[in-house]
Every structure is written in C-alpha cells, then in structure tokens.
C-alpha cells in the first residue's frame, strides 16, 4: 500500500453492494476509503445477498457491517434485516450501517432515515457523500457504548 493509505483505527468491517446491483465503482471506492482509514476490510463486492453479509460478519468477527445500495431497491431487502439478524446470536454488538441511494425515485432523508433505523440500522446515509458518511461512522464509533450482555436476550 502506498503512503497515503494509512490511518489510526483497526476495526474489521464487512462491506458490499446488496441485491441485484452491479455498481462496482462505488464498491471499489468504498473499499479504498475504508482501507485508507485503517479498517480491516472484507469486501463481498457487488450483487451480495443479506445472508452473505451476516455470514461474513460472523465468520470474520467484524465490528461493523456497511451495506451499499445504489439502484434504489434496498427497501425490498432491508425489511428482513431484524428477522435475519436475530438468527445470528453473535451479532448483538455489530454496528450496522447502510448508505447510497436508498429509495426508488425521489425521496427525502427525513422520511427515509427513520424508516431504515426502524429496520435495524444504526447509521443511515441517503445520498450522502462517501467521505462524509465515513466521518459519520467514525464519530459514531467514538461515542459508541456496546450494549451490555443481557442474559435475558
């Protein structure tokens, strides 16, 4: 890696583009940016299914799952997040983020962000600049207090 690809953090992140979406450019830039910020990146590439994301998070022990969606069809998949995540007990402390173009046609962030938070995402970036989004992630991590292990869960 060349000199400018350095950073301070050292967390594991699983990333990829969800669904039938071949937007490889955004995916590569995400990979590049995450690496540059010092994350250990597991990039599943384009055209990835929700199950694959969770499988990879479990397998790698990632702290962060960062899903990109660009063709606007994420809502179809996002509804299943809570249900699926519940199957993976080890993922209680996983930070879940989604970004890109999160709706078909024009929608505004005010409506979209709460809806996705309700689906189970901690961070939601609708049409937010890549670097701004990753700054938001860093801020979130700094203030993040992992949920206590709760024997009743």
């Amino acid at each position, binding site marked *: *890696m*060349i*000199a*400018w*690809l350095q950073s301070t953090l050292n967390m594991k992140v699983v990333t990829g583009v969800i669904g039938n979406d*071949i937007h*490889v*450019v955004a*995916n*590569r*830039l995400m*990979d*590049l*940016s995450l690496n*540059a*910020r010092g994350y250990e990146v597991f990039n599943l*590439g*384009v*055209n990835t299914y929700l199950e694959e994301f969770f499988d990879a998070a479990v397998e790698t022990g990632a702290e962060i799952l960062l899903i990109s969606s660009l063709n606007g069809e994420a809502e179809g998949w996002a509804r299943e997040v809570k249900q699926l995540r519940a199957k993976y007990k080890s993922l209680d402390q996983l930070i879940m983020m989604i970004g890109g173009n999160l709706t078909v046609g024009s929608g505004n962030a005010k409506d979209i962000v709460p809806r996705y938070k309700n689906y189970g995402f901690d961070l939601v970036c609708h049409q937010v600049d*890549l*670097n701004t989004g990753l700054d938001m992630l860093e801020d979130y991590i700094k203030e993040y207090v992992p949920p206590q292990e709760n024997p009743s869960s």
Partner: protein
Amino acid sequence: MSQLQEEREIILGNENVDSFDFDEVREFVKGADENLFISHHFAKKEKMLVQPRGGFPTYEKQFALYEFFVDANVDVLPLTIDSNTRLNDYTTAKKMLRLSEANEVDMLNGYPLVNHGYRNTRKMMTHFNHPVSLRHGTPDARLLIEIAIASGIFEIEGGPITYLLPYSKNFPLDKAFLYWKYVERVCADYSTLNRPINRESFGPLTATLVPPSITIVIQLLEMLLSLEEGVKSFSVSFSQQGSMVQDIVTGTVTRKLADHYAAQIGCEDAIINLVYHQWMGAFPTNRDSADQLINMSTVIASMVGADKIITKTREEAVGIPTKEANAKTVANTQYTLRILSGLPAIVDEQEEEILTAEVHAIMEAVFNDPADTLWRKVFNSIKNGIIDVPFSPHIINHNKMITIRDAQKNIRIIERGNVPIPDRCYAYEKSCCDLNKDTTSIVNDIIRDIGIMQ
C-alpha cells in the same frame, strides 16, 4: 467425426434450435456475398468503417433499425443480443419475445437470435447485404455464434476475459476459456470456406480508469488464443481514454505489439485490425454536450488511425437510444470522417517506450506461468493478479491496482498491486501525478476522473 463436430452436434441439438442443417449452412457460407464479410471491407481499406450499436427484440423492429442505418450510410450493422440470451436462458427470451411481438412493447434489451433462428435471421442479413457484427457479452456463446454464422453474421465480438471480467461477479473463468475455444474453432473452420470470419476483442473492459497496459495485454492475449485455434482475421480494440495523446500512443503500441506477438506464434498471415470505441464511460446528460463528445471521439479515432469506429448516441446517458438518434450519429460520423483532412503524424517516443515495456513485462510474466497451455497461463495470471482490471466486479479479479488521471488526463498507475509493471515505468507513472494528497482527496480525484466527460 471429429471431437469438435461431436460437440457441435450436441450444442445444436438444443431444444430451442429448429433442426440445424450443417451441410446447408456450409453451402451458404461458401457461397455468401463478399459484402457480408467485414474482413472483405477491411481488406479494401477505403475508409474507417462506421458501426453503431443497436438491437431490438422483434424481427420487424430490427429490420426497421437497419433501414435507418443504411439510409444514414452505415458501413457495419450491429446485432446486439438481449440479456436473457447472454445468460443462455432461451426460455425466458422466447417468452419475452412473444410478449414483445404481441404488445408492441419491448420486453428485451436486444435481439434474441437463438429464438429467431438462423433461417429467418439470414433473410434479413442477406436483404441488407452489409457486414454485421454480433455484440453479446455471453460467457458461453457456443450456440449463439453457431446461429449467428448460419445467419450470415461474419463478425463475432467478445472473448473469455473481455466479456467476463466487466460483467460478471462469479461466472467461472476457466469455463469461459473453454467455451471461447469452441467459438474460435468454429470461426476458424468456417473461415476456410470463403473470406475469413472476423473475431473482435472487447477492449473497453470496465471503461473505468483501465490503464492502457492492461487493456493491451488483454487484447493481445485474446488475439493469441484466437489465432492459436486458426482464426485468420482479428480485431483488437480499445475505447477513448480521456487524453488524446494516450489514445494515439495506445493505438500505435497496440498495432506494433499485435503484429509482434502474432508473428511469435507463426501467425504472420493473420490480418489484425484496430477498432476504436467512442467514449464508453459516463456520458453527459445534456444531448448537445454528448454530441460534442461523440464528434471529438471521431476526430481522435482518425488521429489514432483506427480501421473501425463504434459509435455512441446523444441519448447515451438517457437510456436505449431511438433508431433516429442512432442513425443521426452514423450520418454525423461519416460527415466528420469525410471532411477531416491533413492529419499530422504524431509520435510520443517516451510514452510509447514506457507503455511497450509495461506490456512486454506483463506478457512475459504470463508466459512464464508454469501451466501447460496459454489459456491456463492467462487464467492463473488473472487469479494471481498479474493481470488486474480496475473496477471489475468479478471475484477472481485482484483489485489491487489503483489508477488516477494526471493533469493531461492520462490514466496513470499509482498502485501496481501484483501487476509486474517494471520499476522505472512505475516510477514514471507516479511521477506524472500529484501524490502529496490525503486519501480523501485521492478518492475524490478518482470520482472526478470517472466523470471527466460530464
């Protein structure tokens, strides 16, 4: 019966093919008019050939498109195949074709050639009596190209690398090599009957910051894989890269090295032509700007000295172009080629030398792979990152190479990954760029570099 013929009979026994008559097809190819062969038009070398893009589901719409093209003085007609056929899903293609025919709404993004069959399609091809180029993007094109040649389509675009790495996430690359070996052999076989069938590689790849060294290496390798099987007419290609001088140098080096490597395997007799694609990256949504870009591409193609140019339309950013827009581009391009004169001979010795050294180094690394056949060497080289295509979605691709544009918009390698770019070339490439930036700026530069024409 040869092994190839056995395989062909199995392939053509497909339930979607209505009794393939081998003898009749051979007779047809043997007696086919020379004008159907693009290799014949290349041999005449009267002018740069102009080829638009385009495919519609129904016979009638495709026919109407061709009428527009011929009125606009087209040189080469395109036949673009629908995406179901590309995935060998002929059943869905058939259903969508029927729906398209019944409802006057296009349910496919191209012409489902297998479903139309060669008997019908040949009527259209012989009616227009122009060379036709098959554009498909199919990893397993075995059935498709049999039907194409039987229809009178004597140019087949694609290749195991160029049709896979830009389009697929996980189609097995080794299978693709074997399927394309079949294609080469069939093309070589038919080439003995009349003028040669022309094969064309798809140089644009991902059309996103691919450095010329990678483009040329892949062109040369697909060319060698094709000539090895007996093909005698092959087109190497690339798309507008964003810098005029880089395009000119790429053209020069591609031609020189194509001849060099063809000779190395004893195929000096093969005819190699150079094809230039008008800008394949993100297009301006403003139609007037798109027209400027297209015209500029034509001028650069002339300076490159391409043998054929493949055109875009002013509606590129909007969706599938209308036949009117498509025909207008052809007429405009022909006008530009006609009036553009007094082209200077342009040589940039330093850039040529650097690029040539890079290509030789990568080619040598491929040849040094211990595998026993060329296709396995190439397969291994992609797998281990000796060949690395920026922005390929395929899981086998390394994605370790990073490229940006310098101030002149030349594409430069700032991170070579496993690609054996010689040290001095690598130092030169990096010296052209301002690398004293943080990653955020570099990522922003890449985003800007992808959108330079917008």
